[in-house]
């Protein structure tokens, strides 16, 4: 999204929208909340940057660092947790060599920290990789999926 297009979109939000909606546009457009987004939202809504930043830090849906190409979310809701979500996270950490909240060096994967309940407890535990949902998943199933993506991406590279 170009800067002009983003400013236009935020200006549309100002009439009847909220700072929150404007930040959602930024998160969608850039994959994270950058300084330009905070500045623009503050200017358009005539509020201070501190205020916008405060709103952004309140909600877990906003991130301040760019995520990987495939963002991995391991649901930590009660149902998923008792069915082994914690172990799945540790296994993914070992596989990718990163900590929860981090991103792999090649920028391919990021592992989100502490994902709130995603609302599909009947098919727990749930792992979301990119836009693919793994239902009733296991450590093996999850790691296989990650390795599959790795192989695909390697093929794509020249």
């Amino acid at each position, binding site marked *: 999204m170009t800067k002009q297009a983003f400013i236009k979109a935020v200006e549309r939000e100002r009439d009847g929208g909220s700072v929150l909606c404007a930040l959602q546009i930024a998160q969608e457009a850039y994959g994270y909340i950058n300084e330009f987004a905070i500045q623009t939202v503050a200017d358009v809504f005539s509020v*201070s940057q*501190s205020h916008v*930043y405060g709103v952004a830090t309140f909600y877990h849906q906003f991130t301040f660092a760019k995520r990987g190409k495939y963002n991995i979310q391991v649901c930590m809701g009660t149902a998923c947790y008792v069915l082994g979500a914690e172990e799945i996270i540790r296994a993914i950490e070992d596989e990718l060599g990163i900590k929860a909240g981090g991103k792999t060096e090649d920028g391919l994967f990021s592992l989100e*920290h502490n994902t709130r309940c995603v609302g599909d407890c009947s098919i727990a535990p749930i792992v979301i990789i990119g836009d693919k949902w793994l239902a009733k998943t296991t450590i093996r199933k999850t790691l296989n999926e990650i390795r599959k993506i790795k192989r695909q991406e390697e093929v794509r590279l020249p």
Partner: protein
Amino acid sequence: MKIKIDGKEYKVKGEKTILEVCADVGINIPNLCYSKNLGLLSSCRVCVVEVEGRWNLVPACGEIVRAGMVINTNSPRVINARKTILELLLSDHELKCISCSRTTDCRLKLASEAAQCDAERFQSNPHRIDGATHGSPPHTAKSADVGRLDKANNYVRRNPNKCILCGRCVKVCAEHQEVGVLAVNGRGFDAHIGVAWGNELGSVPCITCGQCVVNCPTAALEETSAPRELEGQERNTNVEEIKFLREKLGDKGTHVIVATAPSTRVAIGEAFGLPSGTNAEGKMVAVLKRLGFDRVFDLNLAADFTIMEEGTELLKRLHKMTNYDLKTRTFINTQFTSCCPAWINYVQMMHPELLPNVSTTKSPQQIFGALAKTYYAQKMGIDPKNIFVVMLMPCIAKSSEANREGIDHSKEFKDVDMSITVRQLSRMVREAGIDFAKLKNEKYDDPLGLSSGAGLIFGTTGGVSEAALRTISEKMLCKRLNNVNFENIRGEQGIKVAEIDTIQDSHGNPIRVAVVSGIANAERVIKDIKSGRENYHFVEVMACPGGCVNGGGMPVHNDIIQDNFANARRRASTMYNMDQYNNLRRAHDNPVVKQIYKEFLGEPNGEIAYKLLHTTYKPRKKYD
């Protein structure tokens, strides 16, 4: 309507909260976040009481009493809940009460003591202290200010380890001042007061008015006086700054002089138990002499000079028509006052286009500094480098003004070496063991000790305008006014507008004066002028609501219902009374002013006056 509190029946009239009704009948329900001036926060929950028929405890600050209400303020359930809430607040508190600058007036400490809390009952993971959060890494990129002392801003220091997250500072900054540099960042256990990008206060447009500091119930926010010698050094407490000043006072080779700002004399007594608004001028002079200041002068004299210079400047501007030029987006002729350093900070950062319209006259503090290091030094035969000029101020921004770029008349030394707040002085007095109330009144020293009532009322909103109008009116009319009271610009309203018939601009229109206090109101007036709705010749701005009498450096009161405005009102009315009974009520009548112009400065806005008493302003960046 009848209600029952702790088994006794009371009659109540009007819409009042439980907290107010209880305070009226002599039951002090402790609270940390409630302030009459700020509106409801209900964040600390310390004031919870039991209301019959309600299954949960209700905060007394936010509950309006209704007929037939049965309230228990000291049932075991209430007392236990209050104690537990305070202990939970203390669980991640630093607990360095003895070495804390607010140890005598900390609301948290007073309430915890009264509730007989066990400060270490809950040993929480002190997440705000060491930066580690409860099990989760910070989910922001730079949550830098979690657990760090914020010292980047030289004038306001934040200590998140003492913060109880009541949100008073956020509210006063966003709503009264509309600066909004403080916000609550994060949520849950990670929540903390911070600024944009988790940076420090120095990198956001903080105007250092200090309203967050006087409204802070603990010492999470405090002022720092930043003398140049201490710059860049690690200073953790106010103690080091006071120690620095003590050493200067003890140094025989340094001539230390102090000047007291108009509003300090009506507030200093409050720090020692005198009722608010007590005129303690004589005692204040006495205490400063006991502390070892070589000379004690009155800043009101410098205020008289400000009037002479600013008034002359205004007369010059009045020869041209006042309006806002839409094409060049500049104000052709409105004159804004320049006495308030927080207002200057605001203009420099938020409205640099207004800078040509701000009076170039220095504030009384800087005028005094310049005169002390030139006229006074010459007269006394002391090398100005050996004179250490201290200011006693109701203000935190005055420190920033003393360090402002281009404010000093000479490159070799600062005009004002240090500016301390009333609170800092009261700590020095306590440290020295002086019984303030027992002191005998003493008088200011010569030659900079005589001042007019016009200089005195600088300390309240409307005072600068009134003082200026007294002088300008008489100059314009070439006759003495019988009544020099300008009642229509007195009072605590945020925006006061008056048309002064005795003074006309070049078109023969009476001049329009706006008196503004509180930055939010200043913003409103600027918008009015820009849009062409209003047209003023002279706009006085004080950043703190109510003017300096409600300044960021004033003593903090721990009334059960905190009301800074009421204290400010009492201080202001004392000042107007003192002015009323002063024989000298016009700046241009002051014999010392006349003498210094004759001996040293020449004429107002003249060449020497211009060099010493005027300054220029540069725009500043909002964000670093």
